[in-house]
């Protein structure tokens, strides 16, 4: 079962208009939409889309309005029939299904959340949440129970008897979400689901979705025109332009390695401090000492690396703490044999490797030595010196045109500028002068 993708889309086209067949031929021969199709009365909404969505993943399709993303999502559950190509749901090609079979598939496998909520205004919140179950023919009591359960998940169980109009926009969309959850399908399609909400509410509902997703592990295809939303929600992101998917990758891949100018421009004004994580900006720690070594080893490493503290690791490279030069010297004088006694977790701050860069500033400011980055297993993954963080930010906030002209190293953004300033360490002010830094993290 795990071997089959939840969704698989192969060379999918949707061309509107009378001469769709002719246009298809041209498109398949590689005609660029704007050039050869100019004479034909057609609109190519989706051109040669290919992707797979894995189970339990949030796959975001991002593009401006008119880029074909809404058409694309409607072909995933057969609301629109493609002009060409296949859509496989759990290995079944839905483009070949008869209407009744298609309806059955929608009831059992794919639910949907809509931009303007699409609730039935004449029926209660509870009835709306249970709509999919009603369509599926569940008995009334069972239906209401499940619907109430779904409403509880989104925190609206106290509103079951209200009409949708009596709820705020954010609450209405949570009803839309509850309706999709109550359907109990593995796949959820979300079409600009949060775009009609104001920013603060949107943030709230996004958080709620992520919480629910952590618990339920649905396969979600999420459509949005908002890059920040895409970056926040998406395990992987497909960027669409004029009907074509121009890049598919993780948020970080798209940010650090845009496949073309269009993607680069799109990502130019995203708040990268929210997207880049500690692991993207961290560096290799210079001085690492095993906890079972003696203070003399620590003192020697400190001398060699000319740093103020060494990072002490235990079994399996688990991070234990730090020892400063003073502590090491004192231990040598006291004749202590083991670092275990003097290792401390007070001196440097520790952050998880998936912490957004925006949330590292405080730790960095408070920590006299580079912040330690630990992974999920507690191993020391790297360190972030203050200088690295600031210079990484500096490169983040520079104009995108520079970035595309001189491509950044694919692995770590800001590694190059960081290397430059090692000549003058501990002088962040100078770095500040070189590249304007927005410590506030820019528009959130």
């Amino acid at each position, binding site marked *: 079962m795990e071997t089959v993708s939840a969704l698989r889309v192969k060379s999918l086209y949707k061309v509107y208009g009378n001469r769709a067949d002719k246009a298809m031929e041209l498109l398949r021969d590689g005609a660029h939409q704007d050039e050869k199709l100019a004479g034909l009365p057609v609109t190519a909404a989706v051109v040669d889309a290919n992707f797979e969505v894995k189970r339990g993943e949030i796959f975001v399709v991002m593009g401006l309005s008119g880029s074909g993303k809404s058409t694309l999502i409607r072909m995933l559950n057969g*609301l629109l029939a493609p002009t060409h190509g296949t859509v496989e749901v759990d290995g079944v090609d839905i483009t070949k299904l008869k209407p009744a079979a298609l309806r*059955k598939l929608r009831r059992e496998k794919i639910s949907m959340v*809509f931009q303007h909520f*699409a609730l039935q205004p*004449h029926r209660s919140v509870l009835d709306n949440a249970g709509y999919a179950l009603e369509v599926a023919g569940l008995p009334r009591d069972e239906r209401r129970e499940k619907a109430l359960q779904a409403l509880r998940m989104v925190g609206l169980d106290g509103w079951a008897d209200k009409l949708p109009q009596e709820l705020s926009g954010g609450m209405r969309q949570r009803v839309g979400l509850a309706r999709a959850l109550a359907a109990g399908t593995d796949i959820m399609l979300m079409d600009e689901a949060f775009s009609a909400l104001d920013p603060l509410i949107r943030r709230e509902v996004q958080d709620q979705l992520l919480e629910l997703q952590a618990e339920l592990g649905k396969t979600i295809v999420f459509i949005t025109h908002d890059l920040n939303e895409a970056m926040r929600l998406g395990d992987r992101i497909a960027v669409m332009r004029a009907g074509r998917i121009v890049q598919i990758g993780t948020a970080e891949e798209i940010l650090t390695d845009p496949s073309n100018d269009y993607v680069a421009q799109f990502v130019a004004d995203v708040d990268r401090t929210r997207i880049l994580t500690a692991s993207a900006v961290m560096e290799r720690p210079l001085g690492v000492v095993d906890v079972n070594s003696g203070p003399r080893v620590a003192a020697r490493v400190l001398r060699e690396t000319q740093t103020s503290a060494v990072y002490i690791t235990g079994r399996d490279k688990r991070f234990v703490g730090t020892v400063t030069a003073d502590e090491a010297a004192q231990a040598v004088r006291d004749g202590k044999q083991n670092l275990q006694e003097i290792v401390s977790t007070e001196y440097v701050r520790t952050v998880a490797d998936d912490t957004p860069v925006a949330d590292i500033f405080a730790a960095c400011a408070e920590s006299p030595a580079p912040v330690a980055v630990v992974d999920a297993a507690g191993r020391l993954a790297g360190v972030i010196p203050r200088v690295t963080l600031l210079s990484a930010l500096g490169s983040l906030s520079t104009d995108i045109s520079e970035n595309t002209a001189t491509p950044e190293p694919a692995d770590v953004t800001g590694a190059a500028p960081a290397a430059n300033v090692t000549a003058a360490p501990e002088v962040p002010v100078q770095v500040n002068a070189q590249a304007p830094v927005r410590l506030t993290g820019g528009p959130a």
Partner: protein
Amino acid sequence: MNSADGLNDLLPYVRVGDAFQAGVDWSREHLSALFDGIAAAVDSLVEPLASLLTAPPAIVMVLIFAGLGWWLRGWKFGLGTALGLGLVAGMPIWEQTMSTLALVLVSSGLALLLAIPVGIFIAENPRASAVVRPVLDLMQTMPAFVYLIPAIFFFGVGVVPGALATVVFSMPPGVRLTELGLRQVDREVVEAGEAFGASPWKILLRTKLPLALPTIMTGVNQVIMLALSMVVIAGMVGAGGLGEVITTALFRAQVGAGFEGGVAVVILAVVLDRLTDSIGARTAAAKAQRAMQQA
């Protein structure tokens, strides 16, 4: 013969009237069984209803209508109904008013029975809509009297031709407003039904029709109002009721009797209009609309 006449001779003589006459004649000859059936059916609806409405004493019926008005719209309207219908009963043309009411209810009922399914059909089929719309225009703009002539041919003089001419005349707004109501239903809500795997039939019954109901009820109201206006004209072909009161007054130049008949029609119209209107306002979709306006 001058030149203008010569030019006019170029125009062919198009025998539209003859063709229509031929059509009517043919139908009368070959479809007489059908027309007899229709006549019997309509008769069997109107007559019992009229006797039912006139069976109790007028004062009892006035109180029943007043109670209905009170229940649906409040005590003010109930009181108004009592006064208005009380006046009708006092004139006294109560029996004629009730037989007109029976005729209106039966003909608008039949009209809606045809109009609503046709409206649903053309809302779902844009091509059918393109064909039906001009027909509706024709039905609405054709002078009402014209319907009476073939009706007499088919059904003779009496209640039936009046009722059927009324059905044809009052149907168009029923069709139009049903179509409009269904088309106005939020496309995304319909799409949500499809996305959750509901059948087209279920979407129609559970989503589209309930949401279109306030508009359809406006159509019902319009149909009844048109039926009432036509029923008076139908008095000319012997449909009885207030139509007869008014046409008789017209031919005998009795100003007072004519005015009485007119007042009774107005009162009946107001009562029917307000009652159907308040039924429309009680639908779930209308309540939802009001909730939205308050929010």
